[in-house]
């Protein structure tokens, strides 16, 4: 077994502003990793999970956002959790593995024995301690968190084949066209520092091939990777696929929930998953009430301490209410995220929606959607400072910031 003095470092990849436009319109106002799920910024969930690892020395957030976008958050979370959290900005894209390699000096500062690599936009129970124990047992270079999904949805992800006894990674392929396996890559990994050697190996190999190709121009036309710079190394295609079946990589299967948070719709679904998890891990974070002294609460609900909810309102299930929001008399909220400073007025109804910062929902108005987390207009999204006037109905729509709705709309995107 590993010695208890060994240090662990965690690296969380947070992406960047132009990397994904799928999180619009919310990403027009906030960096996706800072969007709240179950009352906490998205990146907070993997960070809290990392905190539970014994001997955690450092957490690095790596991304393309400007430093100032994360400065406040990083300093406050470091204080709150009493573990150093730092944001490292990638100047140019190096690929998912190249990014890790780019900061190897910082990561290896504390001479960690193990390095966790997590994607920020993954929603799961992050069984990191169990993964680390399993990894130590396997004795390989890396262990990948995997989960079984339905055969139809598997092709959206990296599919892998693992030995059922040794759990070794035998085969890995990214978004295949034909069915390979229903076991997929969750985007959470633990490595020993050998990973850096492996990544460097890919870079040098590519450099050699590039040099060779200069001799043969015919080959230059053929090569699929001719356009990739030598320091651009992708974890999936360049490390996991080639090293599968070589007794270097292993898998750890999670039986809990797992989702990717690529769209606002999924953020509402994942907020609900984390709220449900709170019921087991931190029930004190959830609200309760029966309508007598405080509002009626159904199911899992988070209400920020500074928010004001009228006792005649009925909230839940699956509702998250952020700081300084005001929920008026007789309001009904179901399956929604209410962001900071929102005002929901008397008798308004909000179902399957995300209501943006500083927005206002008028009296007897209704903001709702069918609740299909995967459809383009499956949940209604109101951007920052949107005003829905009294008695207006908004169904299955997306409204960009600073708009006022004085007539009802259905199935529309309002710029």
């Amino acid at each position, binding site marked *: 077994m590993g010695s208890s003095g060994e240090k662990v470092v965690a690296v969380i990849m947070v992406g960047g502003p132009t990397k994904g436009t799928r999180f619009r319109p919310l990403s027009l106002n906030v960096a996706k990793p800072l969007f709240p799920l179950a009352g906490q910024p998205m990146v907070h969930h993997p960070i809290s999970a990392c905190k539970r690892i014994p001997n955690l020395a450092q957490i690095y957030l790596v991304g393309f956002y400007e430093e100032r976008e994360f400065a406040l958050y990083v300093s406050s979370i470091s204080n709150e959790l009493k573990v150093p959290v730092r944001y490292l900005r990638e100047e140019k894209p190096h690929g998912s593995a190249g990014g890790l390699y780019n900061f190897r000096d910082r990561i290896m500062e504390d001479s960690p024995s193990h390095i966790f690599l997590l994607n920020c936009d993954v929603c799961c129970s992050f069984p990191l301690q169990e993964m680390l124990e399993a990894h130590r047992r396997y004795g390989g270079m890396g262990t990948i968190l995997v989960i079984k999904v339905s055969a139809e949805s598997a092709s959206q992800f990296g599919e892998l084949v693992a030995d059922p006894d040794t759990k070794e990674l035998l085969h890995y392929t990214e978004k295949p066209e034909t069915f390979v396996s229903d076991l997929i890559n969750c985007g959470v990994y633990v490595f020993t520092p050998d990973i850096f050697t492996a990544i460097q190996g890919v870079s040098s190999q590519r450099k050699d091939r590039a040099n060779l190709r200069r001799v043969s121009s015919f080959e230059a036309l053929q090569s699929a990777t001719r356009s990739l710079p030598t320091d651009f190394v992708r974890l999936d295609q360049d490390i996991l696929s080639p090293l599968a079946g070589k007794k270097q990589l292993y898998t750890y299967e999670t039986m809990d929930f797992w989702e990717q948070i690529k769209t606002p719709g999924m953020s509402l679904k994942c907020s609900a998953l984390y709220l449900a998890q709170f019921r087991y891990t931190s029930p004190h974070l959830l609200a309760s009430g029966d309508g007598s002294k405080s509002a009626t609460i159904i199911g899992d609900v988070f209400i920020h301490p500074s928010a004001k909810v009228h006792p005649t309102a009925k909230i839940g299930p699956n509702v998250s209410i952020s700081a300084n929001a005001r929920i008026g008399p007789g309001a009904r909220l179901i399956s929604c995220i209410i962001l900071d400073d929102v005002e929901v007025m008397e008798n308004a109804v909000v179902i399957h929606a995300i209501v943006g910062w500083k927005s206002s929902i008028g009296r007897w108005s209704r903001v709702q959607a069918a609740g299909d987390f995967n459809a383009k207009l499956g949940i209604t999204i109101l951007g920052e400072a949107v005003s829905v006037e009294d008695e207006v109905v908004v169904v299955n729509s997306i409204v960009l*910031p600073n*708009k006022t709705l004085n007539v009802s709309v259905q199935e529309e*995107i309002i710029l």
Partner: protein
Amino acid sequence: MKALILVGGFGTRLRPLTLSVPKPLVEFANKPMILHQIEALKEIGVTEVVLAINYQPEVMLNFLKEFEAKLGIKITCSQETEPLGTAGPLALARDKLIDDSGEPFFVLNSDVISEYPLKEMIQFHKTHGGEASIMVTKVDEPSKYGVVVMEEATGEVERFVEKPKIFVGNKINAGIYLLNPSVLDRIELRPTSIEKEVFPKIAADKQLYAMVLPGFWMDIGQPRDYITGLRLYLDSLRKKSSSRLATGPHVVGNVLVDETAKIGEGCLIGPDVAIGPGCVVESGVRLSRCTVMRGVRIKKHACISSSIIGWHSTVGQWARVENMTILGEDVHVCDEIYSNGGVVLPHKEIKSSILKPEIVM
């Protein structure tokens, strides 16, 4: 002489363009919208322009420094901390607008494009001697707007009717006013509407006069009107200084091309096209009734009509882009793609055709 330009807010109707740049800085006929107005004001001797804004003041202020120097006119900002409507900003800028001269000051709405006959308006104002003058323009569908009912001979305004259900007149408020300093005494520093609260009172005192705007008028605050407005503007340019328009075998109708733009062989450009600085239009391209913003590349054999192509975007080979397609900044339409009314937010790649009008986020 002084002037106030009501710049206002978020320019949401001109999204996705205004997601990248505040509305007054969006170019119209290759010149920032607000510059058209500032130049017209400078021409008749206005020495100071106040911009009433409530959004992105830093971006505006940077732009203004550049133009203050170039134009030799003082430009300041008056920033609303809460939306003050169409009259409130005047009260907010009171100290900047009044000086000891007692001269009237202009108020312009930043979305309006016209020939700006401001000298004639000053003359009209002196002649009638009233407290306030407004420009009105004749429209086909007055009920979409606020109608100004006036006495034809003198121009004295009787009343304003907002979106009238029956015909009361066909002249609407063109958003260009010339006001005596005493008008400021009628405006409180709170959200106020100039059409609904201030002008009706001045009209009741028989102190408000309306002048019919000669020449074209357009509110270019939304894409459809922006495109129509370009046609009207270029028509007017043809009459006034046709040397600025492009000529050549590849040009049809009125076309404005920035001198740094390049146009390839075998193209047919026009009518009613504006091509901005640094654009590259490759060979065999057809452009009609469209605006191509700075830094755009239109690849070979593409065909674009009735659309606006945002800064630094590209349109692929053989692509067909039409019917009110609006591309935001840095949008790349792949080769052979068809866009029928696609409205595309910035930083997107269009890899599959948009068959009917749709917003692409």
